[in-house]
């Protein structure tokens, strides 16, 4: 178990280092950053001044190791546009994105676990087919479009919920639902498939032969085993949701990390862009590692390994 953990950690660090390199390369692809930062009306002298001020006159390798070295210590540099520390900017915006992502995940789980379990228990019935139909619909639904539709319906026609902003909790309702919608199909399908597999297994036949109640058979014996892959995918989905929240934040004008990234892309504020990519990647890596650990807790066979 310890060896597995150490190995997992080394891979995680390597992935983080690779992402760091990729994020750096990505922001340098556009050529001369100094020109884009200085703006369209800048003179040659202005550009030179910018280049010197931001250290862009140094060789790329030096710039990279300078950035990477500082990033290791949590110093992600300074934003060109906001004129403040990138780490502070991200820290300020992160609560919005995390609230959105976590409430999205909770909604997704609350919807997809019961749907998946019931569909599996009633395999091949009209209910099961209905659930499969809903997951197909969900997969095909573009989340930005769903967001707009919900805004029209609940915000304008019914007037129940605000369509933008985070002044109060209800500003999160529509965005979280839209975000959850992107994870529901995968989670439902996986729960259903896992439960069908578990319900057909020999140990469920044993549980039935023992005369256990239906609730105990489904919720104790089958779900425990079906939940193992679901936990892993839920963690991965949360990672995707945090990464994908940029679309939702933009539609609903939620000032989270995604919105920050979107603004910064428009402003060529590359220290912010590369840092957000890095931070989201590190969160994703952390989540998948956490999922592996939780699997080891849920599946006793993995504990001895």
């Amino acid at each position, binding site marked *: 178990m310890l060896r597995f953990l150490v190995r997992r950690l080394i891979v995680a660090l390597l992935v983080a280092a690779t992402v760091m390199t990729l994020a750096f390369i990505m922001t340098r692809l556009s050529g001369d950053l100094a020109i884009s930062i200085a703006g369209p009306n800048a003179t040659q002298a202005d550009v030179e001044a910018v280049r010197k001020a931001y250290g862009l006159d140094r060789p790329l390798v030096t710039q990279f190791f300078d950035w990477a070295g500082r990033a290791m210590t949590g110093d992600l540099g300074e934003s060109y546009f906001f004129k403040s520390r990138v780490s502070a900017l991200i820290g300020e915006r992160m609560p919005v994105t995390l609230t959105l992502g976590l409430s999205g995940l909770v909604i997704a789980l609350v919807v997809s676990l019961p749907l998946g379990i019931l569909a599996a228990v009633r395999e091949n019935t009209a209910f099961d087919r209905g659930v499969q139909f809903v997951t197909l619909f969900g997969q095909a639904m573009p989340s930005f479009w769903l967001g707009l539709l919900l805004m029209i319906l609940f915000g304008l026609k019914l007037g129940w919920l605000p369509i933008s902003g985070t002044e109060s909790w209800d500003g999160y309702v529509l965005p979280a639902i839209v975000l959850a919608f992107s994870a529901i199909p995968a989670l439902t399908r996986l729960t259903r498939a896992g439960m069908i597999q578990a319900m057909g297994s020999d140990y469920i*036949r044993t549980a*039935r032969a023992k005369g256990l109640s239906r609730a*105990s058979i489904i919720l104790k014996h089958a779900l425990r085993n079906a939940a193992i892959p679901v936990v892993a995918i839920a963690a991965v989905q949360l990672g995707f949701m945090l990464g994908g929240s940029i679309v939702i934040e933009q539609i609903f004008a939620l000032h989270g990390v995604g919105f920050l990234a979107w603004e910064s892309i428009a402003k060529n504020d590359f220290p912010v862009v590369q840092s957000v990519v890095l931070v989201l990647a590190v969160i994703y890596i952390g989540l998948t590692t956490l999922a592996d650990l939780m699997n080891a807790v849920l599946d006793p066979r993995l504990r001895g390994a």
Partner: protein
Amino acid sequence: MSPLLEIENLRVEFGRTSAVRGISLKVAPGETHCLVGESGCGKSVTSLAVMNLLARGAQRRADRLAFKGEDLLGLPERAMARLRGNAMAMIFQEPMTSLNPAYTIGSQMTEVLRRHKGASQRVATERAADLLARVGITAPGMRLGQFPHQLSGGLRQRVMIAMALMCDPQLLIADEPTTALDVTVQAQILRLLAGLQRDLGLGLLLITHDLGIVARVATRVSVMYAGEIVESAPTAELFANPSHPYTQGLLRCVPVPGKVRRDEPLGSIPGTVPRIGAGFTGCAFRDRCDFADASCAVAVPHQRAGATHDYLCRLAPQSARTAA
């Protein structure tokens, strides 16, 4: 004594395929009734049908299916669940996969007693430890805290047996309990089952394809072929006077010390079991039988070769044939 389990004309169908075609048998208290046949003949389906554990989509019908005189056919699932694992228990063929990998042995054993007898966790744990010792597991206290993957196949099957005994069942159905195990372990498990059956006075319905097992433990044998019981008799009688050609063929396939000569090849039955659909008539064994003629395709009579010896064939009983 009145029988524990009575099955009359049980039929099981999966869609258009008939897996069990009208079998009847009885298991008396203290009796070991062996159901023998090759794989796919409907032995396991019969046992699952008795326990009402058939897969969805299976159709179960019978003239009578009773446990201790109580009808099981009309019993709602809730009441049936109250019987299962309680008065009638079952052991399966696959010890490697029949225990839930996510829970400890102790948790899986105690939940049976807690469910059926409302026992406390402490009482249930004591009972589980006693039974583990009873089935020959050393250090039962330690085993209770272990997970299935930490146990060998033989140990797991012992756990399954102990778990089946948690509520003192009167009827135990064992579906090929030793097939998946090593030969040495097979003998141990068999001896254990036979001993438990004798000591506890259980009615045991033992399903197997191994005639060696039958010879050692059975009081009575029913031979199944293609969803029917083709012959049923007390063990000694069946081995002495097999009257159905299939039974005779089966016995020729088994080496019996003293009866088989070294220079003679072991017997085998040519051909394969036919697939039985709706509307099948006549003897299912006729394509593989040396004695078959046109009349075998029409109807097959039930005959008696003795007071408790029935078989399903138009031929005269073995004893009459050899005498003639």
